[in-house]
């Protein structure tokens, strides 16, 4: 394995008295699929929010290969360095079309400013044409070539997930953070999504960091796993190691099963 694409060191995020992310260190190798798992409220999404700059961590560092430290940057700066995310509860621009959603993702790769937009010189026209083509290409890549003019809110659930990924890809990321990409999907769709995530790594050379609940997905798709509970890292390793780790089984699977029994 090569150098780490993302290296998180001793990251801590507190909300009042609650420590949502507690001294977490993770090394995500380049071109790998890395999973973070843990029960609800373990701090996974908070971790994502810290990486993408939505929250400012109290302590620790987040380093991106070739991009320096992220922990003091704004979300848009981090996106421009090549880190983009999707959301657990899909957050598309619901009233815009699929095409517009992707075009917005292309934002920082375009240059046209206020004056260019008004005067529309040849360079701006060329850029717009390129953006349109690129957006259509990305839509085709996620199998939504026909749905470009549909309003995002009217797309079926699976298509919305894929559109969200297409929008993220439009920002030309090197590191893609997926927050529960298969949540709410049937086994068929889930299998497709697993396939798709692999293609993202193999075709596009992306590094993928994902949060997932579905054990089967994690064990099939990811190369390394970090397990979080109460904001802390309780284990790290390959899928096989994690499956064999008694602490994980006790803390995560055991409690998860108990919780499932109560109908949560």
């Amino acid at each position, binding site marked *: 394995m090569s150098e780490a694409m993302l290296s998180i060191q001793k990251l801590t995020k507190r909300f009042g008295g609650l420590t949502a992310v507690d001294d977490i260190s993770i090394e995500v190798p380049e071109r790998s699929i890395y999973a973070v798992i843990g029960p609800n409220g373990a701090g996974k999404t908070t971790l994502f929010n810290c990486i993408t700059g939505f929250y400012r961590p109290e302590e620790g560092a987040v380093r991106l290969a070739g991009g320096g430290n992220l922990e003091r*940057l704004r979300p848009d700066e981090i996106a*421009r360095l090549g880190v983009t995310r999707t959301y657990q509860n899909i957050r598309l621009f619901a009233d815009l079309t699929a095409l517009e959603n992707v075009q917005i993702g292309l934002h920082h790769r375009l240059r046209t400013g206020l004056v260019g937009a008004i005067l529309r010189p040849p360079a701006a026209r060329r850029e717009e044409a390129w953006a349109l083509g690129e957006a259509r290409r990305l839509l085709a890549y996620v199998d939504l070539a026909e749905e470009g003019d549909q309003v995002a809110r009217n797309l079926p659930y699976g298509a919305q997930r894929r559109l969200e990924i297409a929008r993220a890809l439009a920002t030309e990321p090197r590191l893609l953070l997926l927050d529960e990409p298969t949540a709410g999907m049937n086994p068929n769709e889930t299998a497709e999504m697993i396939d798709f995530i692999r293609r993202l790594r193999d075709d596009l050379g992306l590094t993928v960091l994902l949060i997932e609940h579905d054990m089967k997905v994690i064990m099939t798709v990811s190369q390394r796993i970090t397990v979080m509970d109460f904001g802390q890292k309780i284990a790290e390793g390959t899928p096989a190691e994690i499956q064999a780790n008694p602490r994980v089984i006790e803390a995560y699977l055991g409690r998860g099963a108990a919780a499932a029994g109560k109908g949560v």
Partner: protein
Amino acid sequence: MRLKTDLTTLAMWAIGGVILLAIVIGSVATLRAGGLSARAWRDLVVFGLAQGSLYALIALGYTLVYGILRMINFAHGEVFTAGAFTAYFAAVPLFSSPRFNGRAGELPLVGGLVAALGPEHPVIVGVKLLLLLAVSMGASVTVAVLLERIAYRPLRRAPRLVPLITAIGASIFLQYTFAGLYGSNPQTYPDVPLLAGKTTVLGVEILRAQLLVIVAAALLMAVLVFLVQYTRTGQAMRAVSEDKDTAALMGIDVDAVIVRTFIVGGALAGAAGLLYALLNKQVHFYMGFQPGLKAFTAAVLGGIGNVPGAMLGGLFLRLFESVGPSLFLQGLKIPAAYQLKDAIAFTMLVLILIFRPTGILGERLGAKRA
């Protein structure tokens, strides 16, 4: 890239810094030049406290509604006007017609009582003031409840800007409704016996009307705190402000709680309206607009959604407005500094939103994120 971030932040702090510096320089200059006498300062402070407790009462209405609905009830200033202006029409007969002042016997019982005790007897004046308070609160509560029922309730699930625009529309509509109904000329409240002149409290000279305002506002706020903290309604209000859906699941009638919130806010605004009219003597159709804006500022100042914050914010803001022009604007050699009084409040608002957007005491009554 970093540079841009720093530029905007820097610009914000620079603006804030310049304003703060100006305040300090101005104050120092005023104080060194001698400026006003100690007594004049004290009068300004007392004036600020009296008007500030009115702001606090109005600010509570903003804060309560914001805490529960997350919306700025822009028309709250007009709720205040409704009370003050309507009560005027009760105040005129009560305090200036002979019928209620013991000089004519048309109403045997009332007239007799008034004649026996004299129209300036504290009991008679007190009863009349309570009557006025009832009228004022009643009018304000009616307007507040109608507002909620007609304009706000259908918009519970609408995007955030929609209720705000509705509230702005309602505010303008109500203002000009008052102008149409009651006339667009300012009206002067009749003199209330016992409230004219000054008295001395703890060695400080104070206008009697100011004293009444401060005491009444303090009482009302105490009642409100009791209501919010110790009654079932208050408990339900706090629950709804934390999380409407969960509260509904717990069997709380959310709509009823919201109506009660508007009633409480309206009653406080009505009381503030009457007190304002007793203190400032004049009522007119747009009288609620400036106090409404200021009270909103006060609510933000104290941390919107935060009950003690609204009270503190109201007092602080008005004190600042009252003392400010004489304190630092005059020191900066600005002529007719009192003209800029209103600008001070908005400058404060800008400063607070820049440096401490959650207000002095922080947002509460269900802290919201983002």
